[in-house]
């Protein structure tokens, strides 16, 4: 199981191996753990390389070397996170927080507001308690989420209407509207 200390150590090892400057974007449960929002038990880190020359293919051998050295699962960086990023707001970059800064590697973490948006689109039963917790968290901007979902509906983003309905249901259940 990963914890904040192990995650930092893994990125430190990765930093030693990388041949050039690389940025990594972290989301999902690991982001909540890193941001000290929720003590989530996670086996992998939802993360992707971004704004870097190094892509998934290039990252793989380094990722695997770190896994071997620290005894982590071979896919401790889970890049499948990429496939759900289409619903992120265009200004997500303004809210990123730096979690790790090494010689070559910088790891950024998504803001809870953006994580809620991704989880609303995914609409997984297992995530519901996390989403509720995040909605109650002061750093989550509920008004912004509502506006963004409206924009997504206008853009015809798949599942946007369902995400909005889900959001409103949760707000109602939590007595926020």
């Amino acid at each position: 199981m990963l914890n904040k200390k192990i995650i930092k150590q893994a990125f430190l090892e990765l930093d030693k191996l990388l041949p050039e400057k690389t940025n990594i974007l972290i989301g999902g449960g690991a982001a909540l753990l890193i941001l000290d929002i929720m003590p989530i038990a996670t086996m992998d880190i939802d993360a992707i390389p971004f704004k870097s020359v190094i892509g998934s293919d290039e990252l793989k051998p380094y990722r695997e070397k770190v896994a071997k050295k620290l005894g982590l699962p071979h896919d401790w960086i889970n890049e499948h996170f990429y496939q759900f990023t289409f619903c992120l707001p265009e200004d997500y970059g303004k809210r990123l927080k730096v979690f790790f800064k090494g010689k070559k590697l910088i790891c950024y973490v998504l803001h809870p507001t953006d994580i809620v948006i991704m989880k609303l689109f995914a609409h997984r039963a297992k995530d519901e308690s996390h989403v509720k917790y995040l909605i109650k968290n002061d750093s989550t901007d509920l008004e912004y989420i509502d506006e963004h979902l409206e924009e997504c509906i206008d853009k015809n983003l798949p599942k946007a209407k369902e995400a909005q309905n889900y959001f409103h249901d949760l707000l109602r259940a939590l007595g926020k509207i």
Partner: protein
Amino acid sequence: MITYPLSLAELSSLYFQLQQNGAFCRGENKKHFDNLSLEEVLAIALEESRWDFRLLGILIDFFQKNFIHIKPFLLRNYIQKNKSPEVIGVIQEWVYTLNTSPDLKDFFTLLTKDLKRDDEYKLFNVGQAFNLKNIQKEATSSLMQYKKWGFLCSEIPLLKENLIAEKRLHLYSKEERMNILKELLSSYGEISLQEYLKAIKNSVTRQHARLDILSYKGIKHKGTTKGSIYSIKR
């Protein structure tokens, strides 16, 4: 344990194994995936196709021409161990745009019957550099062959030789076409028939496209020739 995306040496070997079985590709034997059955090789290739889009076109072509040599129950068994077993559903939809023989349909029914698909949508291509604008374009103009299986992608994966077959591909439902039209009109204010056809990848005839535009609420047009311009009444 195979991890994705495959390394270059693994990918080259995979292409080699597919080539040996008659696929339209070329690889080099780097000693990976030796002694695997065709079905095992295909299951690996299906998973890898989300990282290597070219591979998807090769597989569509291969399944269309060689399905008779594939053991569907064995393949189904391997596919179910993949992280994205629904890729075979996408292959099925694209193969159907090229070939609808009853035998082929029976074959795919064995593979895709009761195949679980997630309720959520996800981007098909996972190996691309992260660019939010491009990703959102993928999501909003995704083709029905992907959407049916819970994926989002706006690229036609067919190999050139399959595209030459003078066939119009059914890529979007009427509702999806109207959404694309709405997006075009709100981005540019006015459009030509040609621009609309390009946006929907020529998936309907000119006459059909014209009817789509004329059915859009509040549309007006200038000119009656090929160069007609359509805009929204203000």
